[in-house]
């Protein structure tokens, strides 16, 4: 069909539609070391993240349950993959880079680690949707910090 949202393919790339529909990590971990909830009171999106650590403190596995849009579910799923094997400090640094990317659409500090998250950069054109992409990260950081709840506000 002509004009079938072609200009939205920047935002809804195939990987986002696919991960939004069929997240690979969209379940609670049976065994976990930390968990936290994220809540966006403005739109009603909710996510809970569970994390299992390696003996050295790095992230061994991440699972989540999300009730939200395609952007937030895909972001949570890509996040879960990207942070695997990373230390807490590393993960926090990655989030800072990610947040800059989804706010500005550009990523001067991006390296190969960010490649997987790059499909979410299109969200910068939709300021009301940026929080959808960052909500799972807020929850993850809260879990790593040992706080129970995070808000994308």
């Amino acid at each position, binding site marked *: 069909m002509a004009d079938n949202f072609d200009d*939205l393919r920047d935002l809804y790339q195939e990987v986002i539609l696919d991960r939004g*529909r069929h997240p690979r990590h969209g379940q609670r971990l049976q065994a976990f070391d930390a968990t936290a909830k994220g809540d966006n009171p403005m*739109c009603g*999106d909710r996510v809970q993240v569970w994390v299992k650590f390696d003996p050295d403190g790095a992230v061994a596995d991440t699972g989540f349950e999300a009730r939200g*849009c395609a952007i937030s579910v895909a972001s949570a799923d890509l996040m879960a993959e990207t942070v695997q094997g990373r230390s807490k400090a590393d993960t926090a640094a990655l989030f800072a880079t990610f947040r800059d990317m989804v706010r500005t659409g550009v990523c001067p500090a991006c390296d190969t680690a960010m490649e997987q998250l790059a499909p979410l950069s299109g969200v910068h054109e*939709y300021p009301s949707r940026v929080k959808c992409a960052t909500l799972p990260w807020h929850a993850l950081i809260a879990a790593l910090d040992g706080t129970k709840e995070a808000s994308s506000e």
Partner: protein
Amino acid sequence: MNVDDIRRDFPILSQTIRGKPLIYLDSGASAQKPRAVIDAMVNAMETQYANVHRGLHWMSERTTDAYEAARDAVATLMNAGDRAEIVFTRNSTEALNLVAHSYGRGILKPGQAVVISAMEHHSNIVPWQMLRDAHGVELRVAPITDAGELDMAAFEALLEDGKVGLVSVTHMSNVLGTVTPAERIVQIAHAHGAKVMFDGSQAIVHRRVDVQALGCDLYAWTGHKLYGPTGIGVLWARRELLEAMPPFLGGGDMISSVTFEKSTWAQVPHKFEAGTPAILEGIGLKAAIDYVLGIGYDALAAHELALTDHALARLGAIEGLKIYGRAQDRGGVISFMLDKAHAHDVATLLDRQGIAVRAGHHCAEPLMRRLGVDSTARASFGMYTTMAEIDALADTLNRVREFFT
């Protein structure tokens, strides 16, 4: 009424969004403004503006006249028995808080109860929770049916022990479009000794609100949904109630005299209007009311009914689309969900086609829980909405569904 003529009165409707004509289906959140409202406010600022109620000079006297003319316009609009029964507030939320604070703490006694419904906006929930926690007043919630109507038997049962001092319910749901049976609610409540307040934020946009015919005791609404400016709302209440209620906010304009030992209050309605009011917004609201009454509620209601019937038919025919709320008596607010797409994604795709809808919990989280959803998308209509715009919404929703399938 000719919708094309009406559309020419709303300058914003000629805007394009991302290269597409604006299709504004979010009037339930805030309505667009006709030229008459814009001009009235600009004209006041350019030719006739000063503070009100205190000036001994020409400008202040003229501005006071213009501002107080808004009170007369509201009194006429609502068929209030007395212009002193019209209290200006910032919005419906402030009107509801005024009542929760003043009537709630000043008239209701600990141990009494307030009844709301399961389909209230947060603004008609939270003030009562604050009252409950501060003053020991019980808060009761009347359930709704699966069709999204007030469960009248359950409502009446909540009143039977005679403890309910006030019923405060919506006159039209901002999510489901349900119009509540106001006269019956009043009959039942009064039979059990309770006063009744309606949150008419949505209702007054869509039908004539005659407070004397409804028989209610208090009624709150906001200007910006009735094609007027933001920052001005209305509380109507029976004069004897307003006189019995203590002031809400203290300050200038609401006093009769002030000493450091004691102050006395101005007459109603000024007792409830502390500080410099929303002067320009009042002038704009009068222009909006004149505009609405110039078209007439009969024409507005007929147009809205036709739009709503058409929208329910078109949206109802979309595979995988669920409409929330099937009340017999309803207004032009339709909440829906697609099975394959989250409401926020739907809103973003519609926006790309120039179609503005709301998505989220609509400031009614308890109702969302009752419906078993986190959010819905909502299309809401105004006097300028056309059948073609509803067709565009339905056609685009079909494509949205394909996109996410």
